[in-house]
C-alpha cells in the first residue's frame, strides 16, 4: 500500500496527506519491526510477536487485561499503564517465576513497538503490519555485569535512561539505534542548540509534553 496516499480529508475537502518517512527513520523502524518477530535473548520470535500483538490491543480491549498469561498481562500493562507499575508489582511477578531477563525483554519490545506505532500514527501512515515470526533459538545474550543498582531490575551501572535495558546487550543496542534515529544519539544530546527539523528546544517541548501525558516525571 502506498503510504503517501491521502488518508484523511479536512472538512473543507482539502486532502490531509500522510508524511512519508525519510530513509534513516524508515530503516530504523523496519529494524524494530523485524526484531519484534525474531528470537530475542529469552523469547522466541513467535512469543515476541504474540506479546507485541497483545500490547497493541491493550488500549481497546478490556478483556486482555484479565488474561491468565502473566507475561501477556505484563506486556499490556507496560503498553497502556507503565506509570502504574510499583516495586511490589515487580516483586510479585518475579516471585511468581518470571525471570528478570524476560521482564526486561518484554519491556524492550513493548516500548519500541509503542514508539514506532506512535510515529506512524502521528504521520498519518498506515499501521505497521507485523510479519510472520522467524524461527530460531533465543540467544541467551545477557550482560553478566548487570546488577540491581538504584532500580528494580539489573542494569550495568546505576539505573538511568541510557542503560535501562543494559541487562540485555542486544535490546540495549536496539533501543539506542531507535533513539538516535527518532530523536538524538546520546552523544548528540550534549548539543543544546541542535536542529533536526525542529530546534532542540522544540524537541524538548514535545518530549516534556509526551512525558507529562504518560505521567512520567523523569
Amino acid at each position: 500500500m502506498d503510504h503517501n496516499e491521502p488518508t484523511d480529508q479536512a472538512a473543507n475537502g482539502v486532502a490531509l496527506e500522510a508524511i512519508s518517512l525519510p530513509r534513516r527513520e524508515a530503516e530504523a523502524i523496519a529494524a524494530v519491526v523485524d526484531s519484534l518477530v525474531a528470537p530475542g535473548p529469552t523469547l522466541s520470535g513467535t512469543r515476541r510477536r504474540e506479546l507485541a500483538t497483545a500490547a497493541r490491543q491493550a488500549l481497546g480491549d478490556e478483556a486482555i487485561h484479565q488474561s491468565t498469561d502473566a507475561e501477556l498481562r505484563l506486556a499490556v500493562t507496560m503498553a497502556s499503564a507503565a506509570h502504574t507499575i510499583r516495586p511490589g508489582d515487580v516483586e510479585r511477578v518475579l516471585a511468581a517465576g518470571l525471570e528478570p531477563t524476560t521482564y526486561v525483554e518484554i519491556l524492550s519490545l513493548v516500548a519500541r513497538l509503542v514508539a514506532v506505532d506512535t510515529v506512524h500514527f502521528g504521520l498519518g501512515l498506515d499501521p505497521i503490519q507485523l510479519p510472520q515470526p522467524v524461527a530460531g533459538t533465543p540467544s541467551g545474550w545477557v550482560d553478566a555485569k548487570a546488577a540491581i543498582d538504584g532500580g528494580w531490575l539489573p542494569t550495568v551501572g546505576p539505573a538511568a535512561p541510557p542503560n535501562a535495558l543494559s541487562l540485555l546487550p542486544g535490546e540495549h543496542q536496539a533501543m539506542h539505534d531507535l533513539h538516535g534515529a527518532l530523536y538524538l544519539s546520546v552523544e548528540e544530546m550534549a548539543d543544546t542548540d541542535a536542529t533536526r527539523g525542529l530546534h532542540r528546544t522544540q524537541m524538548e517541548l514535545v518530549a516534556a509534553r509526551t512525558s507529562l501525558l504518560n505521567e512520567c516525571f523523569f
Partner: protein
Amino acid sequence: MLRVSARRTGRTIDLRAIVDPSVDSGLAAGGELLAFTDAAIDQDAGSMAEARRRLVETAGEEAALRAAAVAGNFQMMNRLLDAIGVRVRRSSMKLAEELGLSVPDHLHP
C-alpha cells in the same frame, strides 16, 4: 533539558505550557507542537490529521516528522523508566514542584 536548552541558546520559554497548552510557551510553533503531541499520545484520530496539517502549515513537513519521531521516542523512554524504576533527578523534582506536579514517592531520588 528544555530549560537548559532554552537558557544556553538565549531563548525565553514559559514552562507552564507543558501542563497548560493554552499558555504561550514562547517557542516558534509551540501551540501547534503541543496540539500535535496531544493528538499523537492520546491516539485521537479525530484530531490527529488536523493537528498535523496545522503544524505542517506553520512549521513545515520536517517539523511534523520530527515531532512525531520525538513523541514516539519518548513514548519508549517513558515506559522504560517507569517499568525499570528509574528514580527522578533532583532537578526534575524542582521543576515538578514549580509546575504543581506531584511525583510518586517510589520515584523520589
